[in-house]
């Protein structure tokens, strides 16, 4: 049995069999919430491979697009450094880039700041939408 299927069956068991059999409110709530958590874990596991692949390809495209945008005109070293380390630094690197962009927004001028942040935000939106496939 696939792990995601096992978790889904356990979720159903907590919801249909265990929860209704518990009289006390607090443990009954714990049973129903366990069902919800197991269902979310099952869905997360089922989507994990596809989501990871999407994240990887989108991150590569983001780095490439940002490098092209930076090449148009000089930018503060902090921005180019943050973009250079983005590919290998995961979400921590993306957070660092966002912080650097805000810190450098006056040097970048408003239009360029918005262009760069806008490109980052397009990825953020896709990523959060994927997480909502599980969370919603």
């Amino acid at each position, binding site marked *: 049995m696939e792990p995601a299927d096992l978790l889904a069956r356990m979720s159903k068991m907590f919801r249909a069999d265990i929860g209704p059999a518990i009289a006390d409110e*607090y443990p009954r*709530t*714990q049973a129903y*919430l*366990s069902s*919800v*958590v197991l269902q*979310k874990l099952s869905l997360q596991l089922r989507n994990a491979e596809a989501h990871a692949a999407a994240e990887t390809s989108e991150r590569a495209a983001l780095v490439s697009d940002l490098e092209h945008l930076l090449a148009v005109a000089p930018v503060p070293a902090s921005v180019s450094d943050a973009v250079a380390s983005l590919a290998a630094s*995961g*979400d*921590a690197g*993306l*957070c660092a880039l*966002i*912080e650097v*962009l*805000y810190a450098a*927004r006056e040097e970048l001028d408003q239009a360029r700041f918005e262009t760069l*942040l*806008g490109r*980052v*935000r*397009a990825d*953020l*939106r896709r*990523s*959060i*939408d994927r*997480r*909502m496939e*599980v*969370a*919603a």
Partner: protein
Amino acid sequence: MSDLVPAAEVPARIAAYIQARIPGADDMTLTDLQQIAVGWSHETWLFDAEWMEGGKKRSAGFCLRRDPGNALLRDLSDLGEQFRVLKCLEGTDLLTPRAWWYEAGPEVLGAPFLVMEKVGGECPNPWGREGRRFYAEAADRGILPASFTDALSTLHNIDWQAAGLDFLGVPEAGTNQFAMNEIAKWKKLIALSGHGPEPVLTDLICWLEANAPVTERLTLVHGAYRTGNMLIADDRISAVLDWELQVIGDPMYDVAYVLSDLNRENSDLLSNLVPRDMFYRRYEDATGIRIDEDACRYYQLLYAMRSAAFWMSASGLYRDGASNDIRLARTEWSIPVVLQRAARDLGY
């Protein structure tokens, strides 16, 4: 958590404690004891006490709150501060429970606790079916919506300096210090949660810091003014509760919370209760404060940050073994919900 006096031993301990604090009291007994909140914040017990005093039988209702040491707000929530706020509010027009005693040490119940008056009234859960029906019916009668609005007006009209509430810390008027202080507070909770990086949240925080509004007028701010955080008796607010997030700051912080769609589900009524036009008219008339829609939009984004901090803290407590309440684990999936909403409100 392990040093807490078990819930089963609390009644005997608290009976002895209260008896020792009422001069001449004897034969203290507790009845109708119920524990009404577990896991998210402070533990809460309601009970009635009966005792003999000077040959006469006396009775009173009490509410006890204990800090279990694993509350959602971690060390940002302080029962001692709650006690002090309630004492300050006793001299004002705002209806709040009278605070009786506060114990900071672990000697009695293994953790800090406060004892306050049990105020008459009910507190329907606005997220449940019965609660939503309760507030919808109250909205039709029109009395409770006015009372809800008037209590907030009263809260914002309090002379907080005269009440001694400046111990909460006073941001400088005419600056953005209030908003920056709030951001710093929730950043601290996020750091304490140990949660991994969240780029949308980083974007939100950077935006909030870059756009923090100037606060011209300072009032007492409740910080979580909504149905579910107040008692209702005879169709009116009988007490404003949940004094965990109060600050001296911008009154629009509370107004934004009332206006927020976070606090109503499929209802046009604010907090599932109050018609928007009525709230605007009545609040502005009673306070002389004009509702600033731009500031409210800003504070709604600040609430998104705060909600993300709450859920990170909650899921972190479960992850770290500080709590075994699975409801806290469930909040891990509330984080993207809040962040997707924030992304939408930031325009993407």
